[in-house]
Structure formats: C-alpha cells, structure tokens
C-alpha cells in the first residue's frame, strides 16, 4: 500500500512538473516540439523543419468570439473597416455590424474575415496566428497517433471534407473528434488562415522552368514537391497561394496560437 502510494506520488510529481511549467491556457492545447516536412522546399533545404512546441486553440474562433472583438474595436466593424484591410463582403454573413443573425450562429467558426482582421483579433487576445509550419505540424497528427498519415480514419475525414460542398450555415466549431493533442476540426470544417500564407509562391512548382515565374519571383525555380500523393497538402498549398491578405472567403476562418 505504502509502496503504491509512494509510486503514485513520485509519478504524480513527475507529471505535475512539466505540466505545471507548460499548462496550456484555457481553450488551447499543447503541440509538442517535432518535425514538419514542407510539401515544397528549396532544393538545398532539409526535408524537415524543427517546430518548437507551441499552444494552439482547440477550436476555431467563433462568430461570438469575433463579435466581442468588433464590439471592443469599432474600426473592425463591417461598416467601418478600411478596404485596405478587408475587401467588401467582410463579415457578410452577419446581419449587421453587431448582429450575427441566422446565417452566422454564435458557436460556428467566423468566416469572411481577412488575414488582417484575423491577425488583429489574435493580437487583441494577446495571441498570434499560427505559422504554416505550426499549423501543418498540428494537422499532421491523427485521432489516435501523432502521425496522422498512419491513421486511416483521420485521412478519410480530411478527404471526405474536401469532397463535399460547404454547407450554407456552418456547424459549431469544436464539435469534431479531437486529435491526439486535443485539437479539433483542423482539417474538416473550414480552411484556416496562417500568419505566413504569403510564403507560398505563385506557381511554386516551376519544374517546367516557366519564364514567367522565374521573372516574377526570385528563387521560384528551387521548389520541389515532397510527396505527390498528399492531395490534401496540395490543396492547402493551392488555396493559400491563391489568397490575398484582404480577401474574405465563405469557408475560411482561423484559430490562434501562442509561443510557450
């Protein structure tokens, strides 16, 4: 009995130690340090990039969350936002400046927000947007394994989402199955902004030595794809490289991240 108790205490102390030092903030999960294998990289770059541990929101930012932000920051309201920072259509599924309405349920992910708006929200909360490397690292985990590629159910969920149209009214954020880190809906509810989405080069795969790309983009010839079978990863690259920072898209939302 005593021995068991001691063992339990020692174990408990071991667990409590690191956890206390790095307890995730409310609503966030810890993604431990690990490797990210970019789909495209310069020809001399290593195959994987080390990503330090970070916290990420368990679910996307919701309409209700974002309403709190625009209440506190009038310059981010629909009628007042600068066209430099959000194109027309910004929060276009809301009923008004401060009314969500039937097309934007309070617990659904906020969409039709620009990168500038998403970033301003994150800063307002003392957070930031995840980098591409962080986001992809989080999304590489499956439901039952840190290696999502080896988790058929996880891969199927991603492909299933990619093959169906976006519903006119989005379901609640955070209702999906959590992955091994406790993060939900990363790949099967909406697309998500990343802080450095503009690191995706237009026509990044210039294996054909296209003159246009070489002229428009310095270093464009250096990229090669890691895995031509990773369809969802190609879709994300295509999607990100098609975006501008003021764009708003009906199935593009975001979640926040935080350094340890």
């Amino acid at each position: 009995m005593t021995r068991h108790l001691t063992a339990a205490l020692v174990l408990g102390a071991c667990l409590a130690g690191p956890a206390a030092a790095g307890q995730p903030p409310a609503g966030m999960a810890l993604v431990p340090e690990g490797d990210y294998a970019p789909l495209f990289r310069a020809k001399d770059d290593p195959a994987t990039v080390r990503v330090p541990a970070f916290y990420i929101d368990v679910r996307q930012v919701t309409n209700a969350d974002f309403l709190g932000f625009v209440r506190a920051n009038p310059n981010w309201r629909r009628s007042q936002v600068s066209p430099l920072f959000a194109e027309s259509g910004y929060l276009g599924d809301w009923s008004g400046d401060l009314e969500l309405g039937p097309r934007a349920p309070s617990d659904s992910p906020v969409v039709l927000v620009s990168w500038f708006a998403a970033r301003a929200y994150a800063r307002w909360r003392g957070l930031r947007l995840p980098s591409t490397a962080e986001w992809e690292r989080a999304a590489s985990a499956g439901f039952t394994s840190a290696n999502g590629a080896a988790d058929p159910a996880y891969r199927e969920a991603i492909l299933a989402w990619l093959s169906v149209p976006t519903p006119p009214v989005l379901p609640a954020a955070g209702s999906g199955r959590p992955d091994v880190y406790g993060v939900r809906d990363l790949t099967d509810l909406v697309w998500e902004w990343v802080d450095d989405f503009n690191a995706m080069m237009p026509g990044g795969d210039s294996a054909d030595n296209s003159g246009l790309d070489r002229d428009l983009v310095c270093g464009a010839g250096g990229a090669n794809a890691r895995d031509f079978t990773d369809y969802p990863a190609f879709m994300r690259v295509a999607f990100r490289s098609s975006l501008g920072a003021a764009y708003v898209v009906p199935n593009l939302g975001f979640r926040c991240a935080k350094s340890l």
Partner: protein
Amino acid sequence: MKKTLATFLLGTVLAGTAGRAGEAVKPCCADDVKGVTQAAQLSSRSIYQADSTWTDDAGRPVKLASLKGRPVVLAMFFTNCEFACPIIVGNMMRIQEALPPESRANARFVLVSFDSERDTPAALRIYRERMRLGTAWVLLHGQPDDVRELAMVLGVKYARDSRGQFAHSNLITVLNSAGEIAYRLAGLESDISAAEQAVIAAAR
C-alpha cells in the same frame, strides 16, 4: 467539389493580376474631408494605415506616414540577394534618373529589407555606400511581424530558405502623395516609362 472550384477560381484571379506586369491601379477614393488638417487624415486606401515603426540606416525611427505628401517608389529586398534585387534597385535608379528635376527633387526611393536578422541599420548603411544611393533613398530595417504586414499590404510573397536567402515577388510599387498604390511594376521588366509617368502624376 465547390471548394475545389473556388480554389481554382481564386487561383485564376491571382494569376491574372500577377501576370500583368505594369498594371495601372486607379487612384482611388481619397476621402479627405475639406477643412480638416491633413496631418492625421489618411485615405482609406493609404498603405500608411499600417502604422509600424521602422529604423533607417542611420538608426533613426521612421514611420512610413512621414513620406506622406511625396511620390514614393518602394520595393522590398535584402542586401545579400544574388539575383533579382540588384535588378530591382537598378530599375529604381533608372526611374530616378528619368524623372524631370522637380519630380526627382520631391520623390523618395524606399527599400525595405525582408532580412530583419542580417540587414541591420549598419548593414543597410554599408549597402547605401556600396550602391552610392543619394539622399532621396530611404533604407529601412523592421521587425519580422512588421515586414510581413507590409508585404501583405503590397501583395509581396516571400519565404526564407535554410541558407537565409529569401525567395520573393519582384515588385516595385509607386505610391501617390496620399500613400495609395498608384502603380505596380511586377517582374523584372526593363521598361520603366509607365512607372516614371506614375511618379510624375503622383507628384502633381
């Protein structure tokens, strides 16, 4: 399927704009209110709404909005660039030389570095001397977050590789006196006449 379609449509839109080197952007909607002092007033399209503080190559803090009232020729670059940046800076020099004296006196030529780590104000100073850049040139160092925001405002894509080199869009932007994008010279175009005309128009 709709998602796929949306992606490709978006892709087409982007390819369209990126492909048109030297597209003229209509100066838009200067919503200055008459009688209000101009100092604090920024038009809704002014990139000077991005309110970061930069450091020039003399170590002085600089707000982009301090360039208000002048035509500005601006590019993002880095001093260790081996290929495109010398061409971009060369094109900016040619624009400067081609301008009539009064526009030339008024215009500013701004280079903002992607490389927050290596392009310190001191490194930019060395670059200024090496390239013999005159007093109309402003060389800026910024924090990575501010560099990213400016790139987003201008529509510049960039990525750092493992050697610390940057792959980046090749873009020269002409700003009018309100800080609105008046003209974009994309690619390594050698014809600078339209950019020159945009600076002259912006100086009026």
